[in-house]
């Protein structure tokens, strides 16, 4: 039995003639302890897929099974790292993480909760910023807080929705290593959604492309057979890496081309001018 399983999952937004089928016939199996990356184009329905798995939305048809049980609503067993961090700006780093810990471990005493929060903030290297508010942090630091918040709930599975998408290349590289580091300690099941093939290859055991929507489906999987821990600097000389990377990119380019030739609809933009409030007050 797979740890996480999606069976013929379809998701349609809207009703009647206005409906759009975003995801169509998604079948996916993830085993325990696996690190799977789903690579897809922007707007291909990646976030919809994530929200289906973490329980924020329900599939129109098909089943999402987590440890053999259908997913109903969110659960502390599946930690989520959002693309846009989603920290609460009126809370400090400590309070943001503590809020999650208090919910996940309602029976723990205050000191236990405090210890847990402090240790996870230390793990992501933000001890010096523990009492700062999100606005005083850089993008990378904010995402670390978000990582700490998700991990502090001790989830059995981590779901990452383009967690590093908004960061610059250097910060991105650092955080990739940190996430891998944390993951390798207890090998929790992880699902990474990304639009960066290199990131997928560097981090995951398997890469599954998501064909562009509407009616997005999963493409054939690519196994990444590179030993861990992986060294970024030596990756470029690894034959395995080069071959897999080329295969995936060729595949993605091909489906990208096919999408281009299919869509010849002309979109008419509404003729609207933004209203100006300048000088009204």
């Amino acid at each position: 039995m797979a740890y996480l399983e999606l069976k013929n999952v379809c998701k349609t937004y809207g009703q009647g003639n206005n409906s759009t089928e975003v995801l169509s016939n998604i079948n996916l199996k993830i085993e325990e302890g696996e690190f799977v990356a789903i690579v897809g184009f922007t707007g291909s329905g990646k976030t919809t897929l994530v929200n289906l798995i973490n329980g924020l939305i329900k599939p129109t048809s098909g089943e999402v099974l987590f440890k053999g049980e259908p997913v109903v609503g969110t659960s502390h067993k599946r930690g989520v790292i959002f693309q846009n961090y989603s920290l609460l700006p009126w809370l400090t780093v400590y309070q943001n993480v503590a809020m999650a810990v208090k919910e996940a471990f309602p029976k723990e005493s205050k000191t236990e909760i405090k210890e847990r929060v402090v240790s996870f903030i230390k793990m992501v290297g933000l001890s010096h910023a523990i009492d700062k508010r999100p606005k005083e942090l850089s993008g990378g630091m904010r995402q670390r807080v978000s990582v700490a918040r998700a991990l502090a709930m001790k989830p059995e599975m981590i779901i990452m929705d383009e967690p590093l998408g908004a960061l610059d290349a250097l910060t991105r590289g650092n955080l990739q290593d940190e996430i891998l580091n944390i993951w390798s300690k207890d090998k929790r099941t992880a699902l990474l959604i990304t639009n960066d093939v290199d990131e997928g290859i560097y981090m995951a055991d398997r890469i599954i492309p998501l064909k562009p929507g509407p009616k997005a489906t999963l493409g054939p999987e690519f196994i990444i057979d590179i030993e861990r821990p992986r060294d970024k600097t030596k990756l470029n000389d690894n034959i395995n890496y080069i071959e897999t990377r080329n295969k995936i990119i060729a595949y993605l380019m091909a489906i990208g081309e096919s999408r281009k030739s299919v869509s010849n609809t002309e979109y008419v933009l509404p003729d609207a001018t933004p209203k100006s409030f300048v000088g009204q007050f």
Partner: protein
Amino acid sequence: MKQEITLKKQHSGFAFFKQIASIVKSKFEKDAVSKSLKKTAITIVSILLFLGLWHLGSKALYNKEAAYRIEKALEEQGPAAADAERACIASGESRCQPNTLPSPTQVWASFMSLIADHHLIQAKKDAFNLKMESTNAKLIAQGKKAIVYTGRASFIDIVLTSIKTVFAGFLLALIIAVPIGVIIGLSPSLRSAFNWFIQIFKPVSPVVWYLLVFMIVKTLYIGASSDNAFVISFVSVGLCAMWATLVNTAMGVSSVDKDYINVAKVLKLGTFQKVFKVILPSSLPLIFTGLRITLSVAWMVLIAIELLAQSPGLGLFVWEEFQNGANDSNAKIIVAMFVIGIIGFLLDRLMLTIQQMVSFNKNEGI
């Protein structure tokens, strides 16, 4: 609605005071000094220009009224009376001064006389209290009410009454509007149930609110000896001003960012936690925008309501001076006008500062 949101962060609170502070602070930064000086100079020039125009205008009106009086005397009583009238006006005797728009100097003189009057009344009050001290102590010991000074209220007392009324009204608005706003913001069905109610009562004039409150309070206070003018006026002010807070709170609560709601769902926060830890903090900026509008509306309608309710505040003061028609009445009315304006401005700055303390940029956490 949109306009109310964009209001925030448009001005910085206490900008004028900051300007002064920055002049002091950056004494040695030549550039900053010249910039701030320029700004201050422009403000001072505009004030002087305003005073000058006002002076000229009032002088023209004064001359017109004087000429009319002399003309009237000439027509009705002959040249001798006209000469007497002219001499009387020129002598500055108060009984034959033309009664028109007062000049800036007259207004300033009135202001000073009102302050002097306040000191006089205060002295009387102190003397009275001193005299009654032992009697009052006895009365209180016997469980009776102490005798208080019931003489004429000074201008400062009047202003304080107005401020007290406005804050009582504001608190009432806050107590009513914020909880109801939160509740109808949380539930779309309650929102549509309340919508007609809000839409109908929001545009009702302060005078009508006063009449409504009067009908109710009058009956409630039947037989009670205490003066209910204060109650009537602050309740009317509160009811009249609470709508902005109600609408803004409901809107803030119902339009919480979806990301925050998702966080609450993923963390599986309970309803109580979700409301108090996520929804309320994220709608605080809009709630305070509403409260700021409420306070300025409260101050604006206060004058009319005090006038109707005969509450001894600025509204009644203005009306009584107008009815009084004494020589310096017009000047006193203008003094009251400036006091109303300046207090309104200060209240608005106060709310703006609080509003900026609680507001956050949506991008800060994202």
